[in-house]
């Protein structure tokens, strides 16, 4: 029975717009649509460079539309949550009056039967506009622009940045070797896999030897010691970004397990202040209690299962100048 790990990644970008895209977005807040002159052509939306030669275009803007003609369209019968409209609509290439190139946007056409090449359409503006392409909610049939709700007017300052939010949800199968390592961690066991070819041992539920590129099955499993020595570490001072929950400086340490060549990287330390961490320090594994295992993850996540990190075990430090080089 395959287990799946679901995760959602968001991309909350702030994008700077520059003098050409910024001028277009600023004009949108004033319910005006700009093109840029490229020889005899008027490019809409305006581009910074000639699409054929790559030559930089002078900021020679021309107001177009706002009414235009549908050149090509496609019907979207079942919109997704990101789409501009939540009922069936058309994506269309719309050539605004005065433009040489068409603009891609949505058309609220009612039904696909009413969509036709040559259809005249006008923008439906958002009441509050911030300088984004979706300040135009969509285009509607006819020659008369609309505004949705109360009109709060044009931006007071030129628009220089825009927010762009994307989010994608993934559903990844968890490999069997990872799952076996997680299950073993519930019993305070640190599982390793020994490559039959090179004899190297790997922790972390990796089902293959990355040196010999051979698969490592259950027959390769060995129990690893849960006591080791810190070989190297870093103190991370957190900066604020989406998803960062740490607020104070914290340590990530590398631990060499006793009697092996296995180094476990990027481990949290527990009951050990950041300014007291030393190379050569002796540590033992700390495991989550059953009550803490509810989210199927300890402090290290993934295949480490219930392993939370490492804490001093009271033994004297090991004095070996070569230890610091052991990060793999």
């Amino acid at each position, binding site marked *: 029975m395959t287990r799946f790990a679901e995760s959602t*990644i968001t991309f909350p970008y702030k994008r700077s717009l520059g003098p050409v895209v910024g001028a277009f977005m600023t004009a949108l807040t004033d319910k005006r649509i700009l093109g840029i002159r490229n020889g005899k052509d008027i490019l809409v939306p305006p581009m910074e460079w000639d699409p054929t030669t790559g030559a930089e275009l002078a900021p020679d803007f021309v107001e177009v539309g706002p009414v235009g003609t549908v050149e*090509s369209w*496609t019907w979207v019968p079942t919109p997704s949550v990101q789409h501009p409209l939540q009922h069936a609509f058309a994506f269309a290439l719309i050539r605004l009056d005065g433009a040489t190139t068409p*603009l891609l946007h949505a058309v609220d056409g009612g039904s696909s039967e009413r969509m036709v090449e040559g259809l005249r359409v006008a923008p439906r503006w958002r009441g509050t506009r911030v300088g984004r*392409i979706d300040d135009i909610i969509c285009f509607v049939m006819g020659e008369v622009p609309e505004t949705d709700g109360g009109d709060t007017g044009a931006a007071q300052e030129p628009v220089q940045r825009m927010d762009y939010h994307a989010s994608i949800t*993934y559903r990844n199968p968890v490999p069997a070797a990872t799952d076996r390592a997680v299950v073993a961690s519930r019993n305070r066991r640190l599982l390793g896999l020994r490559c039959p070819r090179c004899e190297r041992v790997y922790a972390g539920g990796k089902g293959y030897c990355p040196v010999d590129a051979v698969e490592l099955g259950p027959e390769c499993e060995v129990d690893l010691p849960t006591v080791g020595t810190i070989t190297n570490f870093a103190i991370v001072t957190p900066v604020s970004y989406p998803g960062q929950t740490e607020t104070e400086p914290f340590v990530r340490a590398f631990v060499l397990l006793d009697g092996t060549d296995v180094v476990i990287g990027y481990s949290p330390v527990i009951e050990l202040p950041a300014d007291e961490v030393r190379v050569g320090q002796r540590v033992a594994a700390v495991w989550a209690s059953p009550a803490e295992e509810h989210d199927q993850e300890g402090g290290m996540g993934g295949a480490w299962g219930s392993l939370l990190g490492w804490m001093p075990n009271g033994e004297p430090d090991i004095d070996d100048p070569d230890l610091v080089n052991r990060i793999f």
Partner: protein
Amino acid sequence: MAAASGGRRPVAVVSFAQSDMVRREELRNDVEVLQPVIVDVFEKVGLTKDEMGFVCSGSCDYLVGAPFSFVSALDAVGAWPPMRESHVEMDGAFALYEAWTQLQEDDIDTALVFSFGRSSMSELGRVLTLQLDPYYVAPLWPDPVALAALQARALIDSGRYTEADFAAVAARSRRDALNNPHAQVKGEQTAEELMGDDYVVAPLRRHALPPITDGATAIILAAGDRAAELCERPAWITGMDHRIETHSLGARDLTTSPTTRRAGEAAGVVEVGDGSGAPVGVGVDVAELHAPFAHQELILRDALGLGEAVAVNPSGGALAANGVMVAGLVRIGEAASRIMDGTAQSALAHATSGPCLQQNLVCALAAEPAGDGRR
């Protein structure tokens, strides 16, 4: 220009392997999908990774939502001791272009190229929307099917093709795929039967869309005499080029593919000579075209001037299996295989990237090296 596209030193495809292309790899991660393919591609020529002068891969971290997934994928090759290695966040065909360029240098004779992708891990339409213009287009979330449908309608409106032509492409692809053990969508249906499919996004019916595919593929390139040692009939690369069009969809004529034509000219398989401006394909027995949507095959055929005598997509093409980041490199592998197995003397492979055939690569292959044949 000819020297650049043909290369200074003959380079050939000597081995090709691919996984079965499937709707969903339920049980295996990228490394586990890739590893048997890497073993296979080496075994076919009796080589090991330690003999590779260069390794280059193509993949996309957004597919599985894992940063640096291309680095962990090297576990399938064996990345110790250190090797000369590179990666492109593109289809593997573009990784092959980089490897081919590297092989122009005289200090290496072989290269491994591979690519992998599990498109089933998320909503592929959402992932591919992230590659669009982030200012004017992406905030509207036009997914790749909607954009392809706009292109298809423009093609119908041009009067050159009809929906029935799209169905004919799909029917032929599925029939040809019956002979491809790795293909995902195959079957014996007529174009008339396929016309009974519902629209997904009009004017594209179900059969005109590519499947969502998980899979991996690998190719070994060898230069000069080394290629002839490793393979009885190497598939020599006689020319290769790739070109890109503007990101502004409205500024493109979506019914044609000028960059495919220009890449074909530079690769030496397209001539535009008779004053009419119409491209004419030259010296091609087989063409493997990376056309994820049925109508795109028609656009590409026109851009490359392929006549009725040319066998197009005998593997079934991207309509039979469309591994994102994989299907382009598979086209090169399938075209090369037709030369290696003796069924063709010459072939071309095409790979694409971006919305509506924005970027295009053409690779010309032949049973004999180009030019003076210097190895």
